[in-house]
Structure formats: structure tokens, C-alpha cells
């Protein structure tokens, strides 16, 4: 864990190593921003286990577990669907991200710049930064539900997509302001604090489950399955306005919820420090602690609330955690939201700063934090987190396909890899069009072909891969012709 603490900031942030961010280098030491990570700086397996376990036990897990219940998930679908979906996510890190990362050992940003050119990477940064902001907004919402409980504030319900009271707005603003200022001033301190909190937080998540199970009627391992089906994850119709989640929904959702990181290749920046590509399996620590047990625990809290009062459909992590674990539960909600919103705001700020490098990091981070806070005031991002996360993965997925094809396949088709670098182009149109056309096709598939957003990224990845090869064929030929003319 200590190895991780010294290096996690460097590893986690693809944008951190952007060339126009000298402050970052000063802050975190040697980052190898424009060069492969050397042998002497590689990290051991344990570093990755610690990082993934901490990173994926976040405030948003407290929203996601209940939202599975709101979507009508049954016991088998949830428990087996999550098991397989998370396995597919781990395999994606292991066989798609880590093999490229350990061969090129470059940040996502630099790898993309070589392939796509600087201007296209700027657009990517903008998209990434905006999505990070909204995600941080959902994390602030989670923390604010704990603060709201302390001040007896009227908090939003499951169907409140807009701010519902002045008290709620003030509560989110207070939490968001503190997080933003801390992210701007003391990112590293909070990062260290997050590492300290992680083991405790994981255990509090487990405690939620232990407290909820007997109250739901589980009194032995023997009757767990029958209670799970009858009292906890009953299946059936979803709540009004929510899509029914079947086994396949849960499998695909849990596979793709971190799509930006594995198939989307954001974690090239993480695994460039790995000695071996099989270290990708370390992501399993995050998937099975955070995205399996934490989601299941959080859904148990919501099941308990519904068990006591079926009419209380509010998904408010603060009150649910307080009910189960008292003040410790409440502290867990605040810390879970805070420690994960902090690096998310920081990363979003870096992504934006790459676009406007002349504005100071402090100002950009504060502005980014305030934007996230504004998003946090709208409970839509938290209450519709299942949809938002699916959209996030879909948005960045095509660039992951571009990197994958560029690295493994392009030369086999007689084309050049890293074409922007070779041709000194600042905007590789083959990559750019691949991104935009894939997104357009995915949107059309969702709107008109009846494919739900939770599934569309799978065909989307193949569409992006084929498009990139075909468009590169035309684009590279055209550039060669104009160069020789």
C-alpha cells in the first residue's frame, strides 16, 4: 500500500502527464510524461491491488446498489450477473489494457497524441473533463445526503431530478465548496487520507450487510437464498421510470461501468508502471470488493428501508447508512463521497487545464469543482447514475478501440501506427471520424433499433474498430498523395 501511496497520483491520471502541466511534475516527481516508464520505476503487484481496491469503493457505490433494486433486479440476476460482469471487466483490463500499457509504457494522453494529434486529444480532454465533472457531482450528492440528515434538510426523492429545496442546494454547495477548495489546495493530502480511509471504509460497507441481513429475515446461511428471493431482490417490475434490469443488463452494466478505464484505455496510464501485463488481474480487487460486495451491501440497505416501509423509495445513502451503522455509517458516506470526488475534480481540472494551459491550476480546479457542485445540486446525475455511467463508457469507448486497433492491427493492414506523430498532423481525421461516427451510430441504434444504452457499446466497439481501419486506409493514402504532390 505504501508503494501505491507514493505513486498513485502519477498512475491514476492520464491527463496529469500532459506536457503543458509543469506544476504536476513539480508536485508528484518523475512522471515520465513524454517517455516510456523505465525499468527502475516499475511497481510490484501489491501496488495495483491496493490502488484498485481503494479506488472502486466509492461514494457512488452507495447509489448504485439501491438503483439495481429500483430496476427490479432479482437475486440470481444480481449475484450471478455481477459475478460474471465483473469478471469480464477484469479480463478486459488484463487482456486489452495491460498488454498495450506494458509494451509502450506511455500515458493515455501521449499515446493518444501520437495516434490522433494534439487537437483531437484536446476534444477528448474536454469530453473526459465534462464527464468527470458530472460524476464528481453525483459523488457530492452522495456526501450531501449525510450532511442533509444532520441538519434535517428536505432531501430529494428518487424522482426529483431538479433541486427540491433551498436547504438541499445549500447543503450541496457547502460540501462542494469544501471539496473544491481542498482539491485545489491539498490534493495530495486528501489522496493520502483516502488511502488511510480505504481499509476502514471497505469494512464499514461489509458491516452494512451484516447489520441489514438479520433485519431482512436472514437468520442462517441456509435460509439466505429463500429470503434473498422473497424479501431482498424480489425481481418483478422496476420502479416507475426505471428500465427493468435482467441478468443480461446487470452483466453488461457491471462489465461496462468502467469501460472508459479498460476498453476505453484510460488505465494505460496506470498499467504502464506494471512489471507484467498479467498485473491487470489486480483490478479484480476493485471489482469484487467495490463493484460486487459494496454494491450488494448498499442494495441490502435499500432493501431494508423498503422492507420497513415499501412507500419510502428515496435513495439517500446518508439516512440509510445512519440507520444501519449510526454515526460511523454517516461518516462513511461523507468520506466515501469526499475522497472519490476529490481526485475526480482534480482530474477534470487537469483535463480542462490542458485546453486552457494559461489559466492557473488553482483557478481551473476551483471552477471545475463549482461546476461539479452545480451538477451535484441536480439529483438527476445520482438518481439516474445507471444511465449516466453507461453513457460515459459509450462516449469514450471509440477512442479505446482506436488505440487497440492502432497498436495491434493497423500494421497488418499495411498502414502506419501512430500516424499523427509520423505525419505531424494535429488532427487525425481517421481517428476523429471514427469517434464521431461510432457515437452517431450508437445513438441511432439506441433511438431507432431498440438497442438499450447498456448494450450498445459492444457493437459500438466493433463498429469503431472497422471504421478506424477503413478510414485510415483512405486518410493515410490521401495524406501521402498530398505530401508527394
Amino acid at each position, binding site marked *: 500500500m505504501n508503494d501505491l501511496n507514493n505513486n498513485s497520483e502519477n498512475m491514476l491520471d492520464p491527463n496529469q502527464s500532459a506536457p503543458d502541466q509543469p506544476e504536476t511534475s513539480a508536485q508528484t516527481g518523475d512522471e515520465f510524461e513524454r517517455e516510456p516508464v523505465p525499468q527502475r520505476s516499475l511497481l510490484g503487484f501489491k501496488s495495483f491491488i491496493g490502488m484498485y481496491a481503494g479506488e472502486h469503493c466509492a461514494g457512488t457505490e452507495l447509489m448504485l446498489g439501491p438503483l439495481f433494486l429500483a430496476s427490479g433486479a432479482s437475486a440470481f440476476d444480481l449475484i450471478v450477473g455481477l459475478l460474471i460482469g465483473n469478471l469480464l471487466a477484469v479480463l478486459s483490463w488484463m487482456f486489452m489494457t495491460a498488454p498495450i500499457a506494458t509494451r509502450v509504457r506511455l500515458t493515455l494522453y501521449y499515446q493518444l497524441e501520437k495516434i490522433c494529434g494534439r487537437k483531437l486529444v484536446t476534444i477528448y480532454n474536454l469530453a473526459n473533463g465534462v464527464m468527470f465533472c458530472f460524476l464528481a457531482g453525483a459523488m457530492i450528492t452522495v456526501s450531501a445526503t449525510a450532511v442533509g440528515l444532520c441538519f434535517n434538510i428536505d432531501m430529494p426523492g428518487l424522482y426529483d431530478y431538479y433541486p427540491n429545496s433551498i436547504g438541499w442546494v445549500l447543503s450541496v454547495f457547502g460540501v462542494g465548496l469544501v471539496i473544491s477548495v481542498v482539491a485545489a489546495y491539498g490534493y495530495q493530502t486528501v489522496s493520502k487520507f483516502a488511502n*488511510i480511509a480505504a481499509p476502514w471504509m471497505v*469494512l*464499514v460497507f461489509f458491516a*452494512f450487510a*451484516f*447489520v441489514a*441481513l438479520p433485519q431482512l429475515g436472514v437468520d442462517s446461511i441456509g435460509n439466505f437464498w429463500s429470503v434473498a428471493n422473497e424479501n431482498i431482490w424480489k425481481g418483478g417490475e422496476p420502479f416507475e421510470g426505471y428500465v427493468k434490469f435482467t441478468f443480461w443488463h446487470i452483466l453488461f452494466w457491471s462489465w461496462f461501468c468502467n469501460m472508459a478505464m479498460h476498453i476505453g484505455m484510460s488505465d494505460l496510464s496506470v498499467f504502464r508502471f506494471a512489471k507484467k501485463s498479467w498485473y491487470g488481474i489486480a483490478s479484480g480487487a476493485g471489482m469484487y470488493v467495490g463493484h460486487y460486495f459494496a454494491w450488494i451491501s448498499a442494495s441490502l440497505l435499500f432493501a431494508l428501508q423498503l422492507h420497513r416501509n415499501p412507500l419510502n423509495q428515496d435513495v439517500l445513502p446518508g439516512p440509510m447508512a445512519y440507520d444501519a*451503522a449510526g454515526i*460511523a455509517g454517516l*461518516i462513511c458516506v461523507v468520506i466515501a463521497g469526499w475522497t472519490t470526488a476529490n481526485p475526480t475534480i482534480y482530474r477534470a481540472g487537469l483535463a480542462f487545464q490542458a485546453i486552457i494551459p494559461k489559466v492557473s491550476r488553482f483557478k481551473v480546479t476551483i471552477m471545475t469543482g463549482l461546476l461539479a457542485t452545480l451538477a451535484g445540486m441536480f439529483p438527476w446525475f445520482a438518481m439516474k447514475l445507471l444511465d449516466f455511467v453507461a453513457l460515459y463508457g459509450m462516449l469514450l469507448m471509440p477512442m479505446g478501440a482506436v488505440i487497440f486497433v492502432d497498436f495491434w492491427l493497423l500494421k497488418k493492414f499495411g498502414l502506419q501506427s501512430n500516424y499523427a506523430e509520423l505525419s505531424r498532423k494535429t488532427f487525425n481525421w481517421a481517428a476523429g471520424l471514427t469517434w464521431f461516427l461510432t457515437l452517431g451510430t450508437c445513438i441511432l441504434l439506441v433511438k431507432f433499433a431498440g438497442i438499450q444504452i447498456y448494450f450498445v457499446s459492444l457493437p459500438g466497439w466493433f463498429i469503431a474498430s472497422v471504421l478506424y481501419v477503413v478510414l485510415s486506409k483512405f486518410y493515410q493514402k490521401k495524406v501521402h498523395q498530398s505530401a508527394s504532390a
Partner: protein
Amino acid sequence: MRKILQIISLVALGGTIIPSMLYCVGSMPLDIVKWIMLLATIVWFAVTPFWMNRKPSA
């Protein structure tokens, strides 16, 4: 000293999870669970920063 602090942190982690397990098997009331978890939380955050993230002295 470091070893002692690590043991205290470990006990705090135990205090975070074990009471809820005891509640699960019907051996401890929920009120007591919540109080022990709070105490364990305070101890964890009070003690752990003194050894975690810090290099052991030679």
C-alpha cells in the same frame, strides 16, 4: 512504536467489522454495535495516520 500503532489500528478495524458480525448472529444489540463502530472509527483515524503513508524509521 510503529508496531504498537499498527496493532491498535488492527484492533480498530476489528472493532469496525466484528460487532456487526456478532449482531448478525444475534449476539450483540444494534445500539452497542453502532457505538463500538464509532469508537473504532475514531481510533482508526486517530492512530493510522501516524504509521500509514510514512516510511518506517531505520
